[in-house]
């Protein structure tokens, strides 16, 4: 059974949601790792969940990105361990330099929580392998600083290296450049997404019928199986 580490910073608040979904629905083994812990070697994947680490002080994710555990995560990223940052986790990965660009205040200047539709652009990451390119599925977002921005060179690089993973389909809820909702690193093992797959993984919590946001964790499961 694949074993997933969920890293918890002071102020993280989606760690139990991710853990419950991974355990109950995908039958992963999971462990919540308080940020002062070390020894991340023995996990098949690492997830940095959403929340408000350090109360979003300075900038979302800025302080958590400087904590010692991130050094270890950077090393594991180089060793090709799948790493997913969700929402604040994405912000932390960007602040830590594991992913390019920046996530800044939504263009509406307001926090926004709603269901959106996203389209799969890259299905070659450990978290999107189950999808076909162009698949559209619904998934909720909840963030105040989720507008992805990047300079033109970075954006060109992301495009030419096929590193845009998800884009908002139709309505762009936060003003992200090119509607970007998720990106990955060059090796494609580090993925950051603003939407919350753990919130869209059970049909009872989904407002309109079934949806496919459970595909992100399903993809991880297949990936882990293949690489075991």
């Amino acid at each position, binding site marked *: 059974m694949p074993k997933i580490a969920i890293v918890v910073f*002071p*102020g993280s*608040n*989606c760690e139990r*949601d991710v853990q*419950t*979904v991974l355990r109950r629905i995908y039958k992963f083994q999971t462990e919540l790792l*308080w940020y002062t812990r070390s020894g991340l070697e023995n996990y098949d994947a690492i997830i940095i969940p*959403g*929340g*408000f680490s*350090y*109360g*979003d*002080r300075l900038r979302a994710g800025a302080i958590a990105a400087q904590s010692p555990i991130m050094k270890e995560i950077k090393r594991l990223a180089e060793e090709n361990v799948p790493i997913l940052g969700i929402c604040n986790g994405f912000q932390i990965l960007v602040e830590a330099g594991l992913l390019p660009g920046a996530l800044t205040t939504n263009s*509406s200047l*307001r*926090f*926004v*929580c*709603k269901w959106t539709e996203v389209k799969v652009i890259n299905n070659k990451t450990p978290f999107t392998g189950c999808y076909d390119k162009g698949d559209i599925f619904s998934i*909720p977002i*909840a963030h*105040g600083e989720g507008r992805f921005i990047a300079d033109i060179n970075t954006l060109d690089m992301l495009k030419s290296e096929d590193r845009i993973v998800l884009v908002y389909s139709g309505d762009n809820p936060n003003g992200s450049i090119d509607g970007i909702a998720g990106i990955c690193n060059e090796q494609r093992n580090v993925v950051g997404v603003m939407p*919350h797959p*753990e*919130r869209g993984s*059970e049909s*009872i*919590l989904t*407002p309109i019928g079934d949806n496919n946001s459970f595909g992100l964790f399903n993809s991880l499961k297949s990936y882990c199986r293949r690489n075991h």
Partner: protein
Amino acid sequence: MTSLTSEELKYLRVKLTREPNELELRVIEAEWSEHCSYKSSKKLIKQLPKQGKNVLIGPGSDAAAIDVGDGYALSVHIESHNHPSVVEPYGGAATGVGGVIRDIVSMGTRPIALLNALRFGNLDAKARDYSRTKWLFRNVVRGIADYGNCIGVPTVAGEVEFDASFDEYCLVDVASIGYGRSDHLIRNHASIGDYIILAGGATGSDGIGGAAFASKGMLEQNRSAVQVPDPFEEKLLIEAVMEAVERRYVKALKDLGGGGLSCCLSELSDTLGKGFDIELSKIHSKEKSLDPASLMVSESQERMLFVTDLEKLKGLREIFQKYGIGFSLIGRVMVHHDLLLRFRGKIVGKMPSTLVCNAPLSLRSSARPRHVDEIQQAAFSPRVPYNLKKTLLAMISNPSIANKSWVYEQYDHEVGTRTVLKPGSSDAAVIRLADNKFVSVKLDGNSKHCYLDPYFGTLGCLSESSRNVVCTGAEPIGIIDHLQFGNPENPYTFWSFEESVRAIIDFCKFMDIPVVGGKVSLYNETFRGPIKPTPVIGCIGTIRDSNWISQPALTPSSAIFIIGLTSDEMGGSEYYEDYHEVVAGIVPRLDLKVDKLNRETMLSLVRDNLITCVHDCSKGGMAIALSKMAMQGRTGFEVNLDLIPNKCSRIDNLLFSESQSRFLFATINPSNADNVLKSIPGLKYARIGESSSKSRHKRNKIVFTKSGSSVIECSIAELEEKYNSLTMEMS
């Protein structure tokens, strides 16, 4: 200058058998304020029915606890933060959220949902205080959002009402639900020698005298009495308490709210029946220069008081250190019954705890105001609008009725992965507790009805919140109330308070639903006088089967039914008040028997899966309720007004009357539903129309007919445009 009355001062001297010193006086002023002592309301509030088979811990603690089976309990509490929010809407509203969350946490339960009920002045561009109202509204919502989002507790439901009586004022009510193991509930206890620990935010000079400030009219705006929010600190505190509860490191726990340490220490000491010996200089503070009195009455936020024994102290310390939470060992539990206060070893105050936290009651006189009869009987008979479609569209853009997505999309309502029915799509929120167990909850108020008739207005709020919960498939198991009125020293105001309490007693006794929590907020006044009486009622219900969960979205090709009688009860309706700008008339009269019958009938239909959608009929009446169902299901309908059971003299009253105890539902099984309804003696109901078929052509139109011809015909797109007016206005 003291805020105590001369009688209170005399009483204090007699009880102490001496003059109180300066510090003692400050402590007493805080604790004997209306806000903390309930000195005007206690006598009445005591009469509320609080017993119920599921009530584990009744009102009186920081929050109440209800048994929901399988060894788990719900905790629930409601609070307001009106005075601070008027002065500083962002911080006032945010700290209101923080306070109610700590009440839930202090029961040993994890907060799983937040709700709010907000009231602002007239949001009309022509209104005198338009820009101020908008500023208050914008910042109150942002304050609630920033705090709730940061601590990771979803804000799942709420209501917003606009009324000119709140011009230059606002009401900010916040409720929270907690969930946890019944055997982990903290039932405060202590032994002699136990340690008293203050943990959380450092104590500073912010919020000094907040409770006393909240017990006055708004004539002076006191910014320094408003507390400063730090949701990050609160989040750490929540996690630390949860860990401490799990390990059973806590014997007693209490939130520091209004009145600060004064209230917290005296109330806990009195509850435990044991004395406290406190060393104030040990308190971790923001400013070294704080004098003992300021330390006692500061309302700095995100603080909680723990009582534990030596054995558990070490573990508790480690938890605080893990989360980086400041804490200080400030005293011990003693064999005497006093609140003994020291500063650097020297005794600076010594009073019996029970004296401190039991202010002498203030007996208020009451008188039925003359205006009530005058405005109830005022002759008002507007012309029936020529173009009823225009009227409907005007009604649906009324900010009190319009779409509130601008509000609830700023709240993270999904965190926790429990939110089954989300804001904007249902009558009440439905939160998952376990695999096949859910709680449904909603807050409702109606200042317009309560102003014209506080008794029937309050009954209406009780009925509405229970109906909302029933619509989702839940059975009501508890009521919470938040009673907000003006200055209780005014006999007219106090009369409305009495009427409101009488309504709660009558309703809860008749329905056999206990009051599990409540709060009173008085002195809600502006220089123009008191606010309209505003009891806010919350109903809590449980659902034991996910198949019961129902929503209002109209389904295509279904038969539409109404349950309940529509009458000429237009007083306080949105139609009179907002459309005709008239405050007059008779408010809807609730018949408790009918209300119970209709509600139980509706619940059995929902639970027998005989319906495809259901919606409560309230603000704006039947026409608005049906329009909302149509918009949500993106499905039109044709309804024949001749078929609606009614005692209405005019068509506009029929469309917009807010008569109580009514439900609208649709079914694809009309004959089965009809058979059930037919068999219930005395039930008023009718099949009133059909929803459109799936075919595109007719689907997007709503039609009301009378005597064979159409009186309103309107596309769903037109409705939506007007329905979204509030969102457009605020974006």
